[in-house]
């Protein structure tokens, strides 16, 4: 046993070393952003760059959060992301269920077509959407932007949910039917609870897609529905970049998604595992 442990030790060291290296690689930009948000204007643009602030300050947060339009933009971002997630799940879950359970040729074409829409550049969809939203009278509204964001997240939702439904044995539903449930009841009371982890994964991806989206928000909103990514980008002007304000607002904007991910972590892991064990 001890010999086995000894032989495994170098492997563990390598694995841990790799893990730390990857974590640093992924985490450093965000850590640097966080540290910059506490720097004075001079430290923020120091040449060469300095990692730690020479003087810690909360001024950037005070300035960023008191900037006109920041709080409404945060509310808009949340509302748009929640709506878009709801649309995405409401449309994607039944679509994925139908595709995986009925297995028709049209269903297969549909799922491939959904994937193809992911290949279309966003800007190519953006210009027609501007006109469509205007004709519908929902330009510069949260619901209009949420619909636009759903065009991004829906294909992914369908694909993700399809893989999760595939992992649920048909026998489970058949057993429920034997016990007197119809298909809808079996879907609601048996299948959906089993794929709740998958739902969490799909929801968080849909939420993130909307939360971070920039181009549609730029093209489709003006004042009422403007979201935070646009406000963050506004710190970059022709004559310079307010690093302090930009990083402070970016840090604040990161908090909800970090909390959401932590809160749903168990479901996410369970959901990913569910998709992975499909035999």
């Amino acid at each position, binding site marked *: 046993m001890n010999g086995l442990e000894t032989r495994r030790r170098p492997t563990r060291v390598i694995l841990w070393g790799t893990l730390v290296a990857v974590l640093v690689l992924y985490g450093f930009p965000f850590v640097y952003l966080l540290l910059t948000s506490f720097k004075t204007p001079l430290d923020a643009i*120091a040449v060469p760059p300095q990692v730690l602030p020479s003087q810690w300050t909360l001024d950037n947060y005070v300035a960023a959060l008191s900037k006109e339009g920041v709080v409404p933009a945060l509310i808009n971002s949340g509302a748009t992301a929640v709506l878009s997630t709801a649309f995405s799940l409401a449309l994607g879950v039944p679509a994925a269920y139908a595709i995986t359970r009925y297995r028709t040729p049209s269903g297969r074409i549909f799922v491939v077509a959904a994937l193809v829409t992911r290949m279309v550049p966003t800007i190519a969809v953006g210009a027609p959407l*501007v006109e469509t939203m205007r004709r519908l009278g929902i330009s510069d509204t*949260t619901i209009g*932007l949420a619909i636009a964001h759903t065009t991004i997240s829906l294909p992914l939702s369908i694909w993700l949910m399809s893989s999760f439904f595939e992992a649920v044995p048909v026998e489970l539903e058949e057993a429920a039917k034997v016990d007197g449930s119809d298909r809808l009841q079996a879907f609601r009371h048996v299948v959906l609870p089993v794929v*709740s982890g998958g739902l969490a994964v799909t929801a968080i991806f849909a939420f993130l897609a909307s939360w971070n989206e920039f181009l549609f928000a730029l093209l489709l909103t003006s004042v*009422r529905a*403007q979201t935070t990514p646009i406000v963050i980008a506004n710190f970059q002007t022709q*004559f310079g970049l307010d690093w302090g304000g930009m990083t402070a607002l970016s840090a604040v904007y990161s908090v909800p998604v970090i909390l959401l991910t932590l809160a749903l972590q168990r479901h996410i892991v369970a959901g990913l595992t569910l998709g992975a064990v499909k035999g």
Partner: protein
Amino acid sequence: MKLRSTSGRLRTAMAGIAVASVILAIAGCGAGGSSQGAAGKLTVLVEGGGKAELQPIADLYQKETGTTVELVELPYDGLYDRIQTELGSGKTSFDVAALDAIWLSAFSTGVSPLDDLFTDDVKRDLFPGLVTEAQVGGSYVGMPVWTNSEILYYRTDLFGDPKNKAAFQAKYGYPLVPPTTWKQYKDVAEFFTRDTNGDGQTDLYGTDVKGAVETEWLATVSQTGEKTMVLDPKSGDVSIDDADHLAALNFYTSLLPYAPPGAAQLDWAGAQNLFYQGKLAMMRFWGHAYTQTPANAKVKGKIGVAPMIAGPGGIAGVPGAWYLSVPKATEKQAEAKKFIAFAYAHNDLSIKTSLGLVARISAFESQAGVAGHENYPAILTTLKSPETIARPATPKWQEIVTSVLTPMLQKAVAKGANNAALLKQAKGQIQAIVK
């Protein structure tokens, strides 16, 4: 039991989402304010940094006319995409747009002529370069709303030091003053490049050399007296490899020994920071920055400003102007033009904004001798100079800058660069773009 519990949580979550959806769907709007497109309202698209410039004018307009002016703030890069998309669609969500000078020719077909606003009195009170720039295809397509220019920043503590004055006089044979010519600039840059703490390392440089932005070199080109900057947009002839452009590039790169290393990557923010950290004795930079020195900058209270330096042709900068334009697609043509005329008439309201930039000569002149606005005379002199000319009015300009001028400059500031060959290569690349 567990299944039921999970199902319950799921139902609760779904119900929550549904309720939120319904509420928001009924609202059908966002948290950012009132609806657009209403009567008695003008929507103005403006770049992030420019909103503050227009806000006092918009407020006064609303007070005097009852028309609300909604300033829609967008990031600099995004503003171009938004305007391009909307003008292309034939319908716009805005009635007025603030356009960067370099975008005017790209958007000229989508905006209404403003010829009736450009009276002789108006033209007399605008810098010649701005009047030229506003005219595309024979029509005035934008009214200048604010403008900027590079000016000379220098350290008053260094220039005022009696020891420096005496040493400079002894070495160069003339007094140490803020330089006005290429020769003086180079002399002063050389003089101040030194090791101030005796550790064997240079820690004070006379100037910076920016390799990551092109505008300063373009100003240098104009300082030679060159009247065809890079290319003639009408004929398509490319002049970038002529003698004046080469002289400008040679002077520009001749300052490298007196500038911090890393010129190829140095942009506006980097140069500004080097100056604030006390590592530069002089800097050529946009005029608005004079009022924005950070409180903890080492050079706070020790900054002087002067007009941009002169080459063989004279003083020259590059006008960094913004224009108000009216999209052809808006139904509020008359109201939009009325606002633009109002903005011109009350241009001086922008003096007290964060950027503090205006467009009218009289607005700049109104601050002569006013403490805190020492940058105005320097900007005024630079912009009034006959050598200060606008950038070429070609829709391809942004592409030329990104794919030719900036890469060319980055190569030029590298050791052993052949400036003539680089300009010749750039000529070929620009010809391919504009053909």
